[in-house]
């Protein structure tokens, strides 16, 4: 499997097929000499995205996330054990609604969009 072609930037789907963002980052763990590196997490979030553009931008977004109390959910890490790359997208054995990936979606639904008639 090619990590960059088949995994990075692919659409994340929860176990019901709902969209929950994209694979913004992948964490690889190197455990000293002699051990084969493993991919341990899929990372999702604005901090990860911003850091890809420029490390300073990443730090800025991280600071904003802390200010808005989102530091624990951004970036959001999904353990590799829960993840199934299918080549087309990446399926996660979780329910999107229960994950921090949709934190903003839920907040907006409750406080803004959901309050407008006809939503």
């Amino acid at each position, binding site marked *: 499997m090619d990590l960059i072609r088949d995994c990075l930037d692919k659409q994340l789907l929860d176990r019901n097929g709902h969209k929950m963002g994209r694979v913004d980052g992948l964490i690889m763990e190197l455990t000293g000499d002699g051990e084969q590196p493993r991919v341990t997490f899929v990372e999702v979030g604005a901090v990860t995205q911003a850091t890809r553009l420029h490390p300073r931008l990443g730090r800025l977004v991280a600071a904003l996330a802390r200010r808005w109390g989102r530091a624990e959910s951004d970036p959001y890490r999904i353990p590799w054990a829960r993840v199934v790359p299918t080549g087309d997208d990446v399926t996660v054995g979780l329910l999107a609604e229960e994950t921090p990936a949709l934190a903003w979606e839920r907040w907006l639904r409750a406080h803004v969009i959901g309050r407008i008639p006809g*939503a």
Partner: protein
Amino acid sequence: MKKIFEMALGIVTSIGGFLEIGSITTAAQAGALFGFQLTWAILLGGLCVIFLVEQSGRLAAVSRRTIPDAIRERFGFDYYALLLVVLALVILLVLGAELGGVCVALEFVTGVGYRWWAVPVAFVMWLIIWKGTFSVIEQGVSALGLVTLCFIAGAWALHPHWPAVAAGALPTLPTHDRARYWFIAVSILGASITPYLMFFYSSGAVEDKWDESYLGVNRIIAAGGMSFGTFISVAVLVIAGVVFLPRGIQVEHYSQLALLLTDVFGRWGFRLVAASLGIACLGAALEITLEIAYMIAQGFGWNWSKNQRPKDEARYSLTYTVVVILGALLVTTGVDPLKLTIFSMALTAATLPVAIVPFLLLMNDEHYVGEHGNGWLSNAVVLLIIGLAFVLALVTIPLEIVGGS
């Protein structure tokens, strides 16, 4: 059977959705200043659009992805971010121009200044998106958009010297106002070859769940709809050439657009122009708003189907709401709608490569288009467009200064 119906629908949608303030304005200015000489620019733009739209549909049908989806996946977040920033800025300006067009049409009919209409029109547009589904919006507005066929009727009724019109189909050099000539040619191309048209088409194909079996339908819709739409633009140019040029009316102010069909249809001509302008621009504004929101939602991996309830796609709903507000703000600032239109068209042409270059690469990547990749002709056309766009990018700013306003 279903496919034939969809084909007819697709063509009608493309015709009704083709004309907008950019194509109307640039065609009218071209006709008013240079008679039928710039017909070739409109035809060239139309031909390029046919190729690009067909490829957009093909990419979506085979890869089941929209263009922004595919660009992020293939080229990474970095490039997608660049694309988003550049295109979103340009498209917002175009949105301002289209909303301005609707407001101008309302000013024609009511006499109330266009700036006052910005907020009500934006609100109505927002309501349509909020409550409507993709098909209702696309088909409803496009069906109404068929009123733009009145321009073809008008051009016919004016009995232009058809051989002269045909002669305009071949590129010729201008005898006067050279900078202006080329600037309008650039703007005509920028008005027709728009990334948002391609992206929106691919979003629609994915919404309608197209697959490989739709490739033939796709070709017919692209060719049929876009050609017909192109002819409507040519009709506007012809009318302007017959009505404005002899009188020396240069389309410098948007109010002059109202005079396009008064010679031929009298009072009704005035109403038809207002209706055409208003509906065509509303359709375009809706498409643009939806497409900016799609581009963002698709690139970030949010839920984005237009067939879901707003609260099931809160981020997407927020995005298009913000976009509508920004568009309305742009119009209320009182920027001259005509100037904004011409400027945004030229800017669109200049920033084309950012979207078209990765698009070309995708159309040749079998991971996305399988065995339906571009043949040499399709590639050649796209390369030509890219080359053209680079030239446009280089000359746009100087031309804007010298030949624009």
